[in-house]
């Protein structure tokens, strides 16, 4: 009833953008960008995922509660990543006697 109905055009545009993103990420992977390769790759993936969430999953037209739910998921996922890696990244800082 009150749910938002997006025009077909929106879906097609997003679809084409996602296809372009896929092509771009493959192309970028074969360029030597040094450490930037991973950054580019993940940035494209995040952008693609955001497009899917916003338009295919209608979050753009959803309630604030939906947004909060998604952000909560992402927040706790990042906690899992960052605090676990905090251990691995700092393990060899203090291992040698007398140093």
């Amino acid at each position, binding site marked *: *009833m*009150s*749910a938002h*109905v*997006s025009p*077909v055009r929106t*879906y*097609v545009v*997003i*679809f084409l953008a*996602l*296809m372009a993103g*896929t092509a771009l*990420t*493959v192309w970028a*992977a*074969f*360029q*030597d*960008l040094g450490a930037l*390769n991973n950054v580019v*790759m*993940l940035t*494209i*993936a995040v952008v*693609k*995922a955001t497009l*899917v*969430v916003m*338009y*295919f*999953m209608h979050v753009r037209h*959803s*309630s604030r*509660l*939906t947004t909060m*739910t*998604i952000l*909560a*998921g*992402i927040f*706790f*996922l990042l906690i*899992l*990543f960052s605090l*676990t*890696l905090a251990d*691995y990244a700092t393990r060899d800082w203090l291992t040698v006697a007398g140093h």
Partner: protein
Amino acid sequence: MSDSHGHDSLPGLAHQFDSYEQQRESASLGMWAFIVQEVMFFGGLFVTYLVYRREYAAAFAAGSHHLDVKLGAFNTAVLIASSLTMALAVRAAQLGKKKPLIGFLVGTILLGSVFLGVKTVEYSHKWHEHHVPGPHFAFESTGVHGEPIDPHNAQIFFSLYFAMTGLHALHMIVGIAILLWLIFHAARGRFTPDNYNYVEGTGLYWHFVDIIWIFLFPLLYLIGRH
């Protein structure tokens, strides 16, 4: 069976709800909470991936070179296309158009099946190359820069590859089963603009599975390709 404060005659409205709107909002929130749960489920795999990719970078790059970028990219495109048909199916349900709804659901199933078919081909390659973790695992290749690779470390890469893509494929199989169920009920005209929660919920689920693949593809197929 009539209770004084219930609704007795609204089709498709469960007894515990007072209105379609309440029912739809509940279904939507429930599905989103389920997706968040799925995010954390895959999150455990992603953090494992991060830890070992950091630790065994060379082995991960070497393992990644044994995956077929062309097939992976093709599958990414197929899955994105299936997300488009799924989104259009939800739109058809919103508008109460039965025939397009069924058509797009069938399209989604076909694309999903193509994806799984390609995945099967990839898995069988891995099986023949002894890249399936376990007692038959073997990895003789050197690294991207010619360095020797400890097969154990490459095995961790392939373990994560199979765990991640395997669970992803399992989610797709479940999704296809649900889509078949939707087609059955759509054919009986069960979904109306008031009540298409099952279509919408399945759509959210399908797009989520797509998003997982959007991350899996670069993380598994495209390491150290330059």
